[in-house]
């Protein structure tokens, strides 16, 4: 029997999703044995025309990481969709927009002005910024257009499954590959990780009180972080209640609160809104009725950068998507 064909592709990303594949260590050989990799730009020399030559649906599955920011990425993603039975959004950027999605708080001009003109080390009296076309001694150099807005994979093309995380942990990758090889797949659109909140598997779950109440928000540098106590119970904003588990609680185990890279559990459309309502519901829960308006405001102001915190990984996939363009 012919081995199933598999493709890997990356859009706007950092290479961390590739590193996590290398972190499969010996398991990567098992995967390489079981499948026929037809496209993997980072490691193997196959070209776009090789993909174009395939029949529609001939690739069993394409794993695509990174958010989408360039026209050419969009074209490639659509081509892979046409040629693939399954498309898996691999990692937080493809799934939610990820950290690059924070760029949606700004636009192209704001980013260019900062990076190429305002920065104190830049010596640029003529105000040069990168151009899509530049004449050089009679020749011409071209650059791809930099878009104003970062998009998730499913805002670009149809996605079958999501492998969450920044980056996805090796055990979930192996489980997903196994499920695909055995054809034991869940319903289309599923996130290939447990449908539970991080709090449900948190090693500190037992220290989380039944009724949480924060009377003063603490930033992680303002207290000595207790290595065993629920972060919210310490007054530190943790996205655990609004985030799916499956990560192995790696940040919690390093004594840092969750920042939400796995996205929400099933049925939650907007992770940030969910996180915000969670925080609002526990702020000053005890004694709320006795607080003055000023005290309430002070309590809320204790949350540093609320938008950038609750939407840390999911701004591009949120209902807001981006700051309104002026």
């Amino acid at each position, binding site marked *: 029997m012919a081995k199933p064909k598999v493709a890997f592709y990356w859009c706007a990303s950092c290479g961390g999703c590739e590193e996590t594949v290398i972190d499969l260590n010996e398991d990567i050989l098992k995967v390489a044995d079981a499948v026929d990799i037809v496209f993997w730009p980072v490691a193997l020399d196959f070209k776009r025309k090789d993909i174009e030559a395939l029949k529609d649906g001939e690739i069993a599955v394409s794993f695509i990481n990174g958010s989408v920011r360039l026209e050419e990425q969009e074209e490639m993603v659509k081509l892979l969709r046409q040629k693939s039975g399954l498309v898996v959004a691999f990692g937080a950027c493809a799934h939610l927009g990820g950290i690059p999605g924070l760029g949606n708080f700004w636009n192209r001009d704001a980013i260019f002005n900062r990076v190429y003109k305002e920065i104190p080390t830049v010596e640029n009296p003529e105000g040069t910024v990168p151009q899509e076309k530049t004449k050089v001694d009679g020749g011409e150099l071209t650059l791809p257009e930099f878009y104003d807005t970062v998009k998730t994979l499913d805002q670009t093309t149809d996605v079958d499954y999501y492998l969450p995380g920044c980056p996805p942990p090796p055990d979930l990758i192996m489980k997903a590959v196994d499920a695909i090889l055995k054809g034991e797949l869940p319903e289309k659109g599923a996130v290939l990780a447990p449908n539970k909140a991080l709090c449900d598997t948190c090693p500190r779950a037992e220290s989380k009180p039944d009724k949480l109440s924060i009377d003063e928000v603490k930033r992680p540098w303002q207290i*000595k972080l207790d290595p065993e106590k629920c972060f919210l119970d310490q007054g530190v904003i943790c996205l655990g209640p609004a985030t799916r588990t499956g990560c192995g609680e790696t940040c919690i185990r390093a004594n840092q609160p969750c920042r939400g890279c796995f996205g929400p559990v099933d049925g939650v459309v907007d992770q940030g809104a969910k996180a915000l309502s969670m925080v609002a519901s526990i702020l000053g829960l005890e004694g709320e009725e006795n607080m003055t308006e000023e005290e309430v405001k002070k309590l809320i102001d204790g949350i540093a950068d609320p938008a950038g915190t609750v939407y840390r990984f999911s701004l591009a996939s949120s209902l807001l998507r981006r700051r309104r363009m002026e």
Partner: protein
Amino acid sequence: MKKITIDPITRLEGHGKIEIFLNDEGNCDRACLQIPELRGFEKFSEGRAAEEMPRITTMICGVCPTAHHMAATKALDDLWKVEPTTAAKKIRELMYNAFQAEDHILHFFFLGGPDFVVGPQAPAGERNILGVIAKAGMETGGKVIEMRKRMRNVLRIIGGKPVMPTCGLPGGVSKQISEDERKTIIEAGEYGVDFCKFALSLFDDIVLKNKEYVDLITGDVYSHRTYYMGLVDENNKVNFYDGQIRVVDPNGKEFAKFKVQNYLDHIREHVEPWTYVKFSYLKNVGWKGFVDGEESGVFRVAPLARLNASDGMATPLAQEAYDKMYETLGGKPVHSTLVFHWARLVEALYASERVLELAKDPEITSDDIVNLPTETPKEGIGVVEAPRGTLIHHYQTDDQGILTGVNLIVATQNNSAAINMSVEKAAKALIKKGEVPDGILNMIEMAFRAYDPCHACATHSLPGMMPLEVSVYDSGGSLVKKLVRD
């Protein structure tokens, strides 16, 4: 006018392509390595809480997240004017050296080293990790994987996860190391020291005993007389985690030595319209274009630059390896770009020795891991030596610690002018009267891979597997020759 394009074609527009322009005689006039990528971290970090930067800037690069994590964490120390506890400094330095060791080994065996181990003239399809295993033995392949696994486990122990660590806080770290974990780290350090000694002996056997390779290393094609920059400790020894930035001139004489807080007095960035990457240069020499020599502010960073900018290594075995390297090559400074590979192994040995030293220090398991900030934040600057060179994070905030200005001087941009020059020099040496030899693919690839630049798939793909396409156009724009690396 002819135009030659070398494009890692399967990466499409994603990350890096080389354009070569020929003059009317058919010789190379100019070469440009273009980086068609930008994400804008400097802008979208504005408005964020400063303490989140170690957990945001890690996503600049998933290959070297620990470097950004640590530069950001140190910028936070400076922002809040808080001195980390001595245990915290040691934990950070330990983690950082484990990262340097595994990253350098990854590069040497998977990315750059195959050029030497398998041979610069070997067929492209063999110049990869599989070729290394074929030549050096299966056992070597197993050791490489084991080395990486153990060092990345150290990163997991301290930072939570190797890709995107999370432990840095202003004034310290979030997690204490347990006694059991310490034992594991000691074993990793011992393995690392043995492995790096082995790697250097392999380099000795396969590269240094082969005259052809030595000629290639020391030849003029890959040489640039530039300034060099690196962090040094109080004895001017190489240090990845902390110290002062030292710059030496092309003769090896100290040109500047400064605290990172004064970096604005020394470093500037030049902008070109044809690439998204900026070009760092020495402010007090000035930007003179893509040229080397004492009159040009172009400087280099990363392994060889650090060794050139220092007076030696702070650990005994690495010092021996350092001495041997300079003795063999006829003294300091060394200008040959390909020697970056050798320097990388010397540094990996130092990093492993340092992991072991720190893990054996009883204070490493102390519970005194953080000093809480008490000052009002305003401005903070942090520096580390990333595997690929000096890395600076500079933050300005309001009095609540919300970011209002961010500047990042990233390692690869410090080398970006020199990388362009190296590519151009290789092209000039190889292209004569319109003749474009097939070997240009290898030679150009080797020129920029020595720097291990972190901006391109081109350089994080497996060598020999990197697809390259060279197209030669005549003055009318018609294709006259096409070379494809398969």
